[in-house]
């Protein structure tokens, strides 16, 4: 079928061969891009640039994983970019107020949980379409963030916090380690636990899921809370990286996240998706931007190339799916 992983169980991986093939195709595309850029430029395969690339891709990758949970339930979360900006303000504000670092981190993540809970509340209780409720928070959260900062930025003086994003561990940027920290539990959740199965079932046919005893409302809460919490986590990483809290940061990242997820084989109609797909998708996008910079391609062209690539990759995925049926 597509990029769902899973394997021997009864999880949504009907055609193991094809699924792995698609994963490999994406990986192959990524490696091909790397090889090409290595040949075309002298600076691509330098430790500095690779570290940079991994940092660039890391945040989108984490957002894309959270986004994927939501899209699998046939929903969408447009707010993640705004949540990143908003939570960067929150953590900067808390640190400026003298709150201990670990409490600031926990509180910031708790904001992510709250925002996701609010989205699910709007969808489940108020009957709003996911597109609308998350669009509304997209704009409102930026507004609240700007109110808090009075339109400016809050500097972060906590060095332990700001050094984190610049640090390496075993030669790999700590930001990339954070991808792994998110991806492994996400994989266990989506592909190995029953809640993951419920996400797929709700995305496929929520009425059938409900009549089979699946708590559909709880599943939707779970999906949106995970997405917003991932976004809040990225907000922490971003604040650490740029050393400030600013509500206008991460503009358009929700689209990057959705694009990564879709490139990674997630179906916007729901019930199709994986954890590794969006990760690869995010790093493919990051590589394109990185490579374009190295090749001195006009940044306007970068946007066009990204758009074309999204169409091409998803089109081939569709073709493959139709062929597999």
């Amino acid at each position, binding site marked *: *079928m597509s990029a769902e992983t899973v394997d*021997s*169980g*009864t*999880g*949504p*991986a*009907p*055609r*193991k061969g094809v699924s792995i093939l698609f994963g490999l195709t994406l990986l192959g595309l990524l490696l091909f891009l790397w090889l090409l850029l290595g040949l075309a430029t002298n600076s691509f395969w330098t430790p500095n640039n690779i570290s940079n690339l991994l940092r660039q891709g890391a945040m989108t990758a984490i957002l894309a994983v959270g986004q994927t949970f939501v899209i699998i339930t046939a929903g969408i979360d447009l707010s993640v970019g705004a949540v990143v900006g908003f939570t960067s303000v929150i953590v900067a504000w808390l640190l400026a107020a003298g709150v201990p670092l670990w409490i600031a981190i926990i509180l910031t993540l708790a904001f992510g949980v709250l925002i996701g809970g609010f989205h699910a509340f709007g969808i489940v209780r108020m009957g709003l379409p996911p597109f609308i409720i998350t669009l509304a928070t997209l704009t409102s959260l930026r507004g609240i963030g700007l109110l808090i900062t009075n339109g400016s930025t809050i500097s972060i003086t906590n060095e332990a916090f700001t050094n984190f994003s610049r640090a390496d561990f075993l030669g790999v940027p700590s930001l990339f380690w954070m991808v792994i920290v998110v991806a492994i539990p996400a994989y*266990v959740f989506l592909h*190995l*636990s*029953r809640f993951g*199965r*419920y996400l*797929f*079932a709700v995305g*496929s*046919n929520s*009425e*059938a*899921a*409900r*009549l*089979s*005893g*699946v*708590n559909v409302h709880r599943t939707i809460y779970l999906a949106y809370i995970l997405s917003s919490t991932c976004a809040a986590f990225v907000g922490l990483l971003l604040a650490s990286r740029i050393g400030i809290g600013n509500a206008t940061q991460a503009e358009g990242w929700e689209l990057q996240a959705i694009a990564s997820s879709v490139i990674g084989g997630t179906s916007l109609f729901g*019930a*199709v998706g994986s954890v590794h797909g969006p990760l690869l998708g995010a790093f493919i996008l990051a590589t394109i931007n990185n490579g374009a910079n190295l090749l001195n391609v006009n940044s306007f062209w970068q946007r066009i190339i990204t758009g074309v690539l999204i169409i091409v990759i998803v089109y081939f995925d569709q073709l493959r799916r139709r062929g597999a*049926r």
Partner: protein
Amino acid sequence: MPGLDEVSDIKSGGLKTAARHPVPKGEPILEMRALQKKYGAVEALKPASITFLSGEIHAIVGENGAGKSTLIKLLTGVIRRTSGEVYWCGKSVQLDNPHEAIARGINAVHQEVVLCPHLSVAANMFLGDEINSAGLMRKRAMTEAAQSVLDDLGFNLPAAAALGSLTIGQQQLVATARAAMRGTQFLIFDEPTAYLTRQESAQLFRLIRRLQGEGVTIVYISHRMEEVFELADRVSVLRDGTHVGTRKIGETNDAELITLMINRTIEQIYHKEHFPAGEVIVETRGLSGPGFEDVSLNVRAGEIVGLYGLIGAGRSEFALGLYGRHASTAGEVYWQERKVNIANERTAMDLGIALAPESRRDQGLCLNLPIGLNINLPVFGRLTRGLTINRQKEIENADRQIRDLKIKTPSRRVLVSAMSGGNQQKIVIGKWLSHGAKLFIFDEPTVGVDVGTKAEIYRLFARLLEKGAGIILISSYLPEVYELSDRLHVFRRGRLVASHDYRAASHEEVLTQAIGV
């Protein structure tokens, strides 16, 4: 109808090529000769030969699943026939797509209105056939023309209003007017009064007679005997996909028609074993909810309780209510003599109720997910150890159901959408067998299922009863509930109107109670 002619003149659509009144009144206009439709091995319509005479109102009656809708689809070009011929005005025609049917003047008005609720009445009436000038739609001209048609037909309806703001009955009238505008020679009504009020029905009947007066041939499909006798000139009866007879309305009566509608031969497939009835598993007292009212019945271990009625009689709604899908508004439920409040589906499942719902597609299955996931969906809680699902148990459970139920699939990973109706139904059942229950509710378990699988499902019922379970069987197919039920309850308009012991009442009696003649 001058209004209609004017409209036809205004429009220049290419479809209305049919000349008016090509055949004198009383001569055959459409002739089916051994028309047959097979879906795979299932014969939905056995070779049928019916002749429709120009200008007559020809009723078609039959039970659910008798082949009426197959017949409509064949005549309107929605599906292709397997064999046989259709003669239109004396010439053999293909009728293999809807455009051809419409171009020849064959149209249908469906029970459920298939129009665009957000567009205006006028826009709907001209949909696909808009009045244009210089590439722009002439909205005002269309509204005026539509209004004149509606006025002319005596409908008090505003052409500019959004279709969705009208009642279902009014929408039905718009759909009829739409068909009438298109140079229709042959108009099929598929149970048009199902959702209409008495007054709306009367209005529709006037319209039908008027169309007949203008030479249009009407095919009228209905469950309601009184309507057939009020409207029709002739009536044809279908039973199990077979055309069993055509009568002039003056030469028959409702008793004869009902007898014709029912299959009297008891097929061998109804495998019935009797078990001594045990304790009462569930009892409802005056249970009411959305779509059903004041239902009191009980189910004992070892017995099948059948619920019969026409579609929309409230049986499925009762089942969903009992299962906790909708909150009940009045009445009580006793589970093994203990009063319970079934607030949601999980509560019902935990008590021991399983529901194989009416619609596999909408309620039963996650079609674009694998078979295995569907089968395990109710039991993932049980298959989980710690944080993760026990992969081994998950595989075993899915494979066991696939094996036990003889689901024909190469693997549990195949998507449900790739399976046939019979196999899909087995997957729904497998889901509940793996969960286990005391009370199984099967809602239309054999719709779209081949005969072999039907027999397997009935044998499975016996196996469940033997283990001490009770079954509620909901079916619109009378022979099925009649032959299998230890007790049979008849529903009509949301209420339980009659109850019979095993084979205590005749088919005629049951059907009469369901229809409410």
